[in-house]
């Protein structure tokens, strides 16, 4: 089955174009956008881990190594499309326009962080595995019923494809030709369980066969192929041709979350090797150097700009007003029931009023 679903790439690990399919669509502006966003997402990820270590945010799920998959897909989305990320996809969410402060607030235990900027259809991160897949199918089906050209993208990992909701969501979308892209980041580990223990199939893309939808397998560390294949799947969706399953083969360098140690379940030298060989940012950098687009000063400015933006977001997160206990009660229903009213009143009285 692996032969039927070869890993498609546009560039090799040295940044050379080996597949000219979309080559003419590459331009300097696009490349710089990809690079800038990958730097920005990586800086954010590293900063977040450090904030967690210092006790300034809670448990955090890092994505370093998966930046090409997240940036490439988010860059392919249209302004009015829907995004259904998981807890490891805030790189995609921030590229699509989520507020950095809010993402940090989410990781600091605040549901204010789940509120997307006005007009951005970004769902809160999926926490239970695969449950966002039927949501994306439903939201996309709704767009089709309204007659718009909007689409949805659902993110999920390799382990999610073992869940019932993955299959139910793909089947639903396939039956109703919902305009949705199912974007799998196969980082080859579900916490500690490697893919060969997760599934007998050699690819995830082949699972599309069961739903009679296109299934493609791509190099998730090649931002070009991620971007162009996502764009193609979105165009297909917009034309009413239904969903696509994309398997982006990638690797997370670090832990599942800041609460686990990957060296306990795998040889981390693999992460070191992959970082040298296949790192998504290094590969794009090599392409830029090969084609003469690389500009040291521009890169430095992009890095500084990202660091400054993230520092500002951290400052905003830390200056955010403390949790208002009234908020626990205020968003359960549109109108609170008597139980909630009574509990709120009694609790606020006990603590001497609301937020100080």
């Amino acid at each position, binding site marked *: 089955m692996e032969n039927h679903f070869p890993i498609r790439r546009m560039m090799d690990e040295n940044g050379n174009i080996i597949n000219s399919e979309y080559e003419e669509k590459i331009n300097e502006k696009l490349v710089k956008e990809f690079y800038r966003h990958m730097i920005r997402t990586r800086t954010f990820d590293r900063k977040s881990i450090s904030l967690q270590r210092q006790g300034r945010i809670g448990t955090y799920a890092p994505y370093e190594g998966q930046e090409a998959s997240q940036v490439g897909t988010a860059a392919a989305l249209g302004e009015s499309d*829907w995004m259904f990320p998981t807890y490891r996809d805030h790189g995609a969410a921030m590229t699509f326009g989520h507020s950095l402060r809010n993402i940090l607030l989410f990781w600091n235990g605040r*549901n*204010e962080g*789940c*509120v*997307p900027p006005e007009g951005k259809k970004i*769902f*809160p991160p999926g*926490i*239970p595995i695969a*449950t966002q*897949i*039927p*949501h*994306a*199918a*439903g*939201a*996309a*089906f*709704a*767009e089709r*019923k*309204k007659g718009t050209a909007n689409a*949805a993208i659902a993110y999920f990992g390799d382990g999610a494809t073992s869940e*019932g*909701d993955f299959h*139910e*969501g793909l*089947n*639903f979308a396939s*039956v109703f030709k919902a305009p949705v892209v199912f974007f799998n980041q196969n980082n080859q580990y579900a916490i500690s369980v490697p893919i060969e223990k997760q599934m007998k199939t050699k690819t995830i893309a082949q699972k599309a066969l069961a739903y009679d939808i296109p299934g493609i397998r791509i190099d998730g560390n090649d931002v070009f192929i991620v971007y162009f294949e996502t764009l193609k799947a979105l165009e297909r969706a917009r034309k009413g041709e239904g969903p696509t399953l994309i398997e982006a083969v990638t690797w997370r360098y670090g832990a599942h979350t800041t609460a686990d140690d990957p060296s306990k379940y795998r040889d981390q030298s693999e992460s070191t090797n992959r970082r040298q060989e296949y790192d998504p940012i290094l590969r794009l950098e090599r392409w830029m150097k090969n084609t003469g687009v690389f500009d040291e000063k521009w890169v430095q400015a992009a890095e500084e700009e990202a660091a400054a933006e993230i520092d500002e977001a951290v400052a905003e997160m830390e200056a955010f007003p403390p949790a208002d206990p009234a*908020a626990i009660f*205020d*968003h*359960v*229903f*549109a109108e609170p*029931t*008597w*139980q909630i009213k009574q509990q709120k009143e009694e609790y606020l009285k006990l603590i001497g009023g609301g937020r100080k």
Partner: protein
Amino acid sequence: MKTAIGAKTMTMVQAITDALDTMLQEKEEVLLLGEDIGKNGGVFRATDGLQAKYGEGRVIDTPLSEAGFVGAGIGMAVNGFLPVIEIQFLGFIYPAYEQIMTHASRLRMRTMGHFTVPMVIRAPFGAGVRAPEIHCDSTEAIFTHMPGIKVVCPSSAYDAKGLLIAAIEDPDPVLFLEPMRCYRSAKEEVPEGKYSIEIGKGKKLMEGDDVTVITWGAMVPEVLAAAKQMTGKNIPCEVIDLRTLFPLDKDMIAESVQKTGRTVIVHEAHATGGVGNDVLAIINDTSFLYQKAPVERVTGFDAPVPYFGFEDHYLPTPARIQQAIEKVMKF
């Protein structure tokens, strides 16, 4: 709100069809989703004729996949539609439990009102119709325990229509439980057109000063039969059909039990963790000093709902209810 003009005599299941028809007519965002609800009209014919009238685009036969179509319903609700989902039997809702518990009921809270789920899940439930196993569960308490979803349970045609319309218009998710035994057991006048009944309000079916009997769903006719017998024995009973299981009608419960001082709670669901315990908590919180006897509960047993060969033994009967009423009177 009432804009109804005439009235028709109908069964509860016909009143449900009528409510769905009324709302499909009224709001183009209303969509029906479920298994076999199209040409087949649903396993209980609750959607009979609606696909022919409104088309496959609005009365949608889904794949056999409760988690899938409840999950997709959440996505549709968030994106501007008002899905009304049919689960064939409450005993088959469990694959969708995760979608209801972790998403439908808490998306408003997670996003502080940015994303909301105005969705109704209809589910026939309860034993007593000689249905196969798992088709007879009454696990309403699983859902009343869940913050962020309302649970409604009518027992008559008039209430079913008005409450279903209210549920569809509610900005939050509502689980709408339909006692199968009441589907065709009685007929009553139901107004034509649109009217709604406020969610969270019970209904007093009999007035009496000695004992309050609180119930819902398919136990309503059983309780009425027992209460009439007891009234004949000079023990006038007050009967309350709660109609909504979350939020409970605290005021109606308190007012009645303060008057009578004696209470019997009747439900067919298992005793432990049942909604009856929440009724008891309300009595404790509001009316402790008015009580003349400990509250009695008549419920299904803490055993799985048995095969139908045994179900008459499982379900509370008028005889068991009468015994409980006598017990609170004699205390």
